């Protein structure tokens, strides 16, 4: 017995001798491993925790009494801004009531780089499409102007295609926290990362219900798994999760862990994009900030954590309702909500806000913007830094532009079957850009017919002959030597270019041999324009055109007068802005401001202008270009319903390869191009192919039509001239006197030489002779 006892003692002694070092060794190993994990955790948590895609916003929308708007585009805009339609007056932010004559809106908060406005209820009263009044519903006071928030138009996703809005734990209401803890880890504040009681309770519950009702993982374990580990179910992974949880718990406060968890968890899928974190989920499911979530909504979101798509209120409403009730009951059992609260919320339905997949609105505009952003930020930064990028884009104009171009091209194909192509990539193409001429803001850009087929941006990348759309720059060059009333020759002439003969021709046969500068531009008369170019000097034309910063090559050949040198459409559009902007060339602006995730301005772009011609010359050019629309090649515009003053120019190139129209008012300018990428003929002129698209676009944008025209600047005078001679009209003698604009000091000094008394008698005699000769 003693011997037996002794041998047990020896065994224990030996065991202890071997086991103790083993335990010490293991403990040391675990400590070392935890230390290793802590540096890994520290590295991950102390830096940027998540990749937040940068967001691109449109410009804000201004509304004011007296403004004409396109109701359907406006309603569409409200929907994209996340306003939800109700059949009662709006009571919460983002709610909307619409009738034929009234729109009541509970505005979202407006947060811009320079200002913040709390969301308030407003009433917009309409008469037809005209805003009669805007009223602040809380105060009853009229509002002279209302600014709608910018629209989120694009996100720069990284490879993981995740979207989240970060929230601080202080912003999360207690009932939201309670809902999450009740269903996921009710003893979160009691345990140290591992909860044996929780595991036992989960096992018991699951056995009792013979199904997986509860998980044993704590929030810290879930965080460790989501953040650092693969979803693979292995013992090693489970052990690693355990050690990591313990390490995290020793390194961070409970609230900090909870905050990371709430921002990390996957909570659903918006098409191909993962909705991560409670902040994004609040907007995705309920269209509101986490701070505004009700108990019902909080319980719904908490219930999603187990299986966001399995319990999705968008996909499985019943399942989602059951899960929400489970969360509410769990909250009640813990004593975190009262019996009354439970009974109030349980019968409530789950009302989701609805969503739209993240789309790429204005893809060509976004590409143009991205090119500028890529100079400032790497693609990695754009997809992770959570920048807010504010642009000049007006999504209503963009929608109208896309629609006008689509309809215009379809109309052309329908009217001429020869334009049809079987290969979608070879189809008739078009491009369009809309700018605000004074500031250079690009409101919309459509670089082609179908972005999904080809991303080639015909506004910024194409180089096309402008044809007659280039003529205004030729005429501008001549304003120092000639006046709008000067007479040009419209007779055929031969010019020598590089040793070869060049014989320009008019678009259509004309008998008239002398035309005024105004008529020549209005009717886009080639022979007269070349005559003007030769009078002015080709070098002078090139020099003037270069002032407009065309980046393409322009050479002093006579054909420059007819627009034979290629231009980039955006540059042509920008150049036309000069006429509408008192002679200043604006920089085409798409990017306005970039803010970091804390709202600090990183980059700011303002309008930049440079004078390239005088306000007086710009005004006269606008007056000449108005004649194009009033009496010239764009005269059909009036019949199409445009009654306000417009300046513009058509352009058609040889064999009808390109059709252009650039039209503007003091408020807006749009350039339209139609053609084939391979230079096939479109069998239509600028007036026939491009102009109707411009008209359709403007008819859809009444908010940009003020009906104003340009104010005559200093340096311009008016005089009455004879339309035949271009000289000062003689009272009661000249048959067609016209009032004309002149640069001060350029008014003709001679009186009409055609309609003097002597010449009148001579003319009568000539006419009589001619009459007699008919016998």
């Amino acid at each position: 017995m003693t011997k037996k006892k002794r041998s047990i003692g020896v065994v224990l002694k030996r065991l202890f001798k071997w086991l103790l070092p083993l335990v010490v060794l293991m403990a040391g190993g675990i400590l070392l491993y935890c230390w290793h994990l802590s540096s890994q955790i520290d590295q991950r948590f102390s830096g940027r925790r998540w990749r937040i895609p940068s967001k691109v916003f449109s410009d804000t929308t201004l509304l004011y009494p007296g403004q004409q708007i396109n109701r359907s585009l406006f309603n569409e805009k409200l929907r994209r801004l996340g306003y939800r339609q109700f059949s009662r007056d709006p009571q919460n932010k983002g709610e909307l009531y619409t009738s034929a004559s009234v729109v009541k809106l509970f505005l979202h908060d407006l947060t811009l780089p320079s200002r913040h406005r709390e969301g308030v209820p407003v009433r917009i009263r309409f008469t037809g499409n005209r805003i009669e009044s805007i009223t602040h519903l809380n105060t009853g006071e009229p509002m002279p102007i209302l600014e709608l928030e910018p629209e989120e138009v694009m996100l720069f996703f990284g490879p993981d295609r995740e979207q989240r809005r970060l929230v601080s734990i202080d912003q999360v209401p207690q009932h939201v926290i309670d809902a999450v803890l009740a269903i996921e880890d009710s003893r979160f504040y009691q345990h140290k990362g591992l909860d044996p009681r929780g595991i036992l309770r989960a096992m018991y519950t699951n056995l009792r219900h013979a199904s997986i009702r509860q998980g044993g993982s704590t929030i810290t374990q879930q965080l460790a798994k989501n953040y650092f580990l693969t979803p693979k179910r292995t013992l090693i992974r489970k052990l690693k999760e355990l050690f990591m949880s313990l390490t995290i718990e020793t390194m961070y406060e409970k609230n900090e862990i909870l905050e990371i968890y709430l921002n990390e968890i996957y909570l659903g899928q918006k098409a191909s994009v993962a909705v991560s974190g409670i902040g994004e989920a609040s907007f995705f499911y309920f269209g509101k900030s986490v701070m505004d979530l009700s108990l019902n909504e909080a319980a719904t979101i908490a219930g999603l954590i187990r299986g966001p798509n399995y319990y999705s209120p968008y996909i499985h409403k019943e399942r989602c309702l059951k899960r929400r009730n489970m969360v509410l009951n769990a909250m009640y059992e813990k004593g975190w909500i009262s019996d009354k609260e439970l009974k109030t919320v349980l019968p409530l339905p789950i009302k989701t806000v609805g969503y739209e997949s993240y789309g790429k609105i204005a893809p060509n505009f976004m590409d143009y913007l991205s090119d500028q952003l890529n100079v400032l930020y790497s693609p990695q930064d754009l997809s992770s830094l959570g920048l807010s990028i504010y642009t000049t884009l007006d999504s209503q104009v963009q929608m109208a532009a896309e629609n006008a171009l689509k309809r215009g091209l379809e109309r052309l194909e329908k009217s001429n079957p020869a334009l049809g192509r079987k290969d979608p990539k070879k189809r008739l193409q078009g491009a369009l850009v809309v700018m605000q001429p004074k500031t250079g803001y690009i409101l919309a850009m459509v670089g082609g017919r179908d972005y999904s087929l080809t991303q080639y941006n015909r506004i910024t990348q194409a180089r096309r002959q402008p044809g007659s759309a280039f003529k205004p720059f030729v005429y501008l060059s001549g304003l120092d030597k000639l006046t709008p009333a000067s007479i040009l020759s419209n007779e055929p002439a031969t010019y020598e270019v590089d040793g070869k003969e060049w014989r320009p021709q008019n678009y259509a046969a004309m008998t008239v041999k002398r035309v005024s500068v105004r008529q020549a531009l209005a009717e886009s008369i080639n022979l007269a324009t070349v005559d003007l170019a030769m009078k002015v000097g080709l070098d002078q034309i090139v020099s003037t055109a270069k002032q407009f910063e065309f980046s393409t090559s322009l050479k002093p050949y006579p054909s420059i007068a007819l627009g034979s040198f290629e231009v980039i459409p955006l540059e042509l559009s920008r150049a036309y802005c000069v006429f509408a902007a008192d002679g200043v060339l604006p920089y085409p602006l798409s990017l306005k401001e970039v803010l970091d995730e804390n709202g600090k301005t990183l980059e700011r772009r303002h309008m930049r202008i440079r004078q390239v011609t005088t306000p007086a010359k710009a005004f006269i050019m606008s007056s000449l270009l108005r004649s194009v629309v009033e009496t010239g090649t764009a005269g059909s515009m009036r019949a199409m319903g445009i009654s306000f003053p417009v300046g513009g120019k058509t352009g058609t190139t040889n064999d009808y390869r390109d059709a252009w129209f650039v039209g503007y008012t003091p408020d807006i300018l749009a350039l339209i191009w139609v053609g084939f990428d391979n230079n096939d003929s479109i069998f239509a002129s600028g007036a026939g192919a491009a102009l109707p698209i411009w008209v359709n676009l403007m008819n859809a944008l009444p908010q940009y039509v003020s009906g104003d025209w340009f104010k005559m600047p200093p340096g311009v005078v008016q005089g009455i001239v004879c339309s035949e001679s271009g000289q000062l009209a003689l009272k009661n003698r000249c048959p067609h006197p016209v009032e004309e604009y002149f640069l001060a000091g350029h008014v003709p000094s001679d009186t009409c030489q055609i309609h003097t008394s002597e010449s009148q008698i001579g003319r009568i005699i000539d006419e009589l002779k001619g009459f007699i000769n008919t016998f």
Partner: protein
Amino acid sequence: MNSKVLSIRSKSFLMVCILGLGWVFTGCAPAVLTPLPAEHPGEPRETEKTETTQEKISPRALAALQLTDQGRMYLEGGQPDDAIGILEQALNLNPTSGMNYYYLSEAWLMKGNIVQAAEFNRLAEIYFKDDSEWLHRLMQQRERIKKQKPL
């Protein structure tokens, strides 16, 4: 038949002669597109009235004025960048407001960009040519621009 035709032709010829002579002695009866001035035909004249002249301020101009005012307040608060942003909005809303140009010039002056300040000052003048009070302010601004060295 032939004599009848000849008689019609003779009558027509006579009519043309009478009308022609009448035209010579009475002067042309032109289809005047725009009324001629009473004296000194064809002499240039400064015309002050344009199509944009408005007796009453339009709702659009009123709305733009709100933005201009906000821009002015930003300037007073020493925030030229914020002022420029909102004044550009005002300019897009009402491109014929001289005030926007004036304050834009002021904002660029505050930022030390005298080239842009001078450009906007020059543009403002177009819209204030009939307003002596604003013209005076513009001239003062111009002087300040001249005195300021670029930053």
